[in-house]
């Protein structure tokens, strides 16, 4: 009885699903954005270690500091990194005095002695303030676009670090035939919808002056700021990998000893007769 019922129900589902497969359907219109869209370029990162495998490797402190400089001088005009606190900059190799000085360049909201809203200089305990008070203010100032907070950007996009690098270096004036690009937008095949509201932020070599003698090129700026944003998204990356190597070494030894005791326990069962 159960099997007869099952047969009937089974036939119902099978016929239904197969019917769906044979019913002709409208041809999907080819999505040009999908054809133009490019996957991120591949770059070797210091924090990915040998072979770019991501097992060893630490952040290049110099690169993070340069990336922070690029962020501060270029990106921060529109984009916040509101999940990062000034005190976190110690990870980049800044001293306490330097961090205090950096924080003091920013104003954060406060309440004065009379209870009135005011602002004060930021301290190391504060987070990097928002650039715009809210989304409406951002859109009003940015021609309708809303510059996202960058704290988590490299984790919020597939292959994020490479994505940020590719996006920053991927602008092109060669708009393909048949692709509609409004004048207020820019062509960038690494962006998911191809037309991006952000003007090329890194426009020319020499735009940022590095103190450490690293090449002042757009390519270098893009790499440095991508590395910096990898740190803002995953500040515990080094700690994580260090712990991982220790944990796995421990587990390998533990499992090896466990295997030896397994062999010993089972010796009388598995020995050839």
């Amino acid at each position: 009885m159960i099997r007869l019922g099952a047969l009937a129900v089974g036939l119902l589902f099978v016929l239904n699903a197969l019917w769906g497969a044979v019913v002709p359907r409208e041809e999907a219109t080819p999505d040009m954005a999908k054809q133009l869209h490019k996957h991120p370029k591949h770059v070797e990162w210091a924090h990915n270690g040998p072979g770019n495998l991501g097992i060893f490797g630490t952040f290049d402190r110099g690169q993070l500091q340069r990336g922070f400089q690029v962020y501060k001088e270029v990106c921060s005009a529109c984009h916040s990194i509101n999940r990062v606190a000034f005190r976190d900059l110690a990870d980049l190799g800044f001293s306490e005095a330097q961090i205090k000085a950096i924080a003091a360049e920013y104003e954060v909201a406060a309440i004065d002695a009379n209870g009135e809203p005011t602002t004060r200089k930021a301290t190391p305990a504060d987070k990097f303030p928002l650039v715009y008070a809210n989304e409406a203010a951002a859109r009003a100032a940015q021609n309708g676009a809303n510059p996202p907070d960058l704290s988590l950007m490299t984790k919020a996009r597939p292959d994020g670090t490479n994505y940020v690098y590719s996006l920053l270096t991927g602008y092109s004036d060669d708009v393909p035939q048949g692709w509609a690009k409004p004048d207020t937008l820019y062509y960038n095949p690494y962006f998911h919808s191809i037309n991006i509201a952000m003007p090329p932020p890194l426009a020319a070599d020499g735009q940022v002056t590095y103190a450490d003698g690293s090449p002042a090129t757009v390519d270098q700026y893009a790499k440095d700021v991508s590395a910096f944003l990898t740190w803002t998204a995953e500040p515990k990356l080094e700690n994580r990998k260090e712990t991982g190597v220790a944990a796995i070494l421990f587990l390998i030894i533990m499992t090896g000893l466990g295997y030896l005791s397994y062999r010993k326990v089972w010796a009388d069962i598995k020995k050839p007769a």
Partner: protein
Amino acid sequence: MSFPWAKEYKPTSAVGQWMDERLPLPRFIFNALGPGYPTPKNLNAFYNFGVLAGVALVIQIITGVVLAMHYAPNVAIAFDSVEHIMRDVNGGWMIRYMHAVGASFFFGVVYIHIFRGLYYGSYKPPREMIWMLGLVIFLLMMATAFMGYVLVWGQMSFWGAQVITGLFSALPVVGTSIQTWLLGGFSPDNATLNRFFSLHYLLPFVIFGVIVLHVWALHIPGSNNPTGIDVKSEADTVPFHPYYTAKDFVGLGIYLIVFSAFVFFMPNSLGEPDNYIPANPLSTPAHIVPEWYFWPFYAILRAFTTDFLGVPAKLWGVIAMFASILLLFLLPWLDTSPVRSNNYRPLSRILFWVFVVVALLLGVCGGKPAEEPWVRLSQVLTAYYFAHFLIILPIVSKLEKTKALPGSISEAVLAKYGKGGGAAPVAQPAE
């Protein structure tokens, strides 16, 4: 409850004696996992995954309890509190990655555990209750994992909650009311987040309770084994401790190594980047996809694209998705072959592997956007999924000529190890 030759618990100390007379907990453990539980001596590595699933649940509960100390179930700050855990809580990144990766691994080991049961016929008499309780655990896991994913309150959390509760709106007449009732509003909001947090904290303990029943039911007939034949004498078994405690420990070590590789070196590889974008009810992600462990069922849900017999396509999809799991409850009565193990069922064994491939391909389809060729492929695969359990298996189990079974488990083991460890066949074909 056990075989007559099971070792009996004998307290070795005065304290043990005192305890045994008042609360025989050590006796209970001795009989459940210790030397008092005779276990077939031919269990292979796949029989390790039940224990691994138990460990995975314990890891989820421990890390989850700690996360709940720092997490705030409020739409205004839920996402921020998760980032607070990642950045400011000591070791918080590790706890959270263990919990997120742990969910994937829990499903991974449970899927292997289920497929092991399918291959060796562990759902057959007298183990039907174990099988059905296992399915109850699986359903509870799915609900728990879904609600946990929503707690992050990222883009996929929000839109996942919208889509999954929206399934119920496909039901006629009462559908929309049910969705509103589940969400506590007309769209996912604070009420949703709060109830999901409450249930996400509750359900793992319900799962734990059902696991106790699952293991209790297991201890009545004892474990199945790769030959699928019953234990006949003491020569067929070894005491669970030290034999399987030693073996399971090795499996656990290997499991933890793989788990650690993901937690520490690629913690986000199993998740969707979109969930690192805070939930935004005004912006729909381009592709709403669940986590990988739901992909096969998501493919079945989307495989029904035409109205059929006056029932709308969307409702068919929802019915089929639930049916695809619920039909497994009937499996012990659909597959009527008296032979359990597929090692001795030549036809069924091929069908098993075909089904594995179909299930994996359904998973691939479920992870892709709803466009060709994936939709048509998932329709054919879905048809096969239902045909496998409801049509093919019942017929094959009637018609199939099975191979001769070994006389006993120890005979099968001797055939394997007896002749100087040579690869002697486990059994001879019937003809």
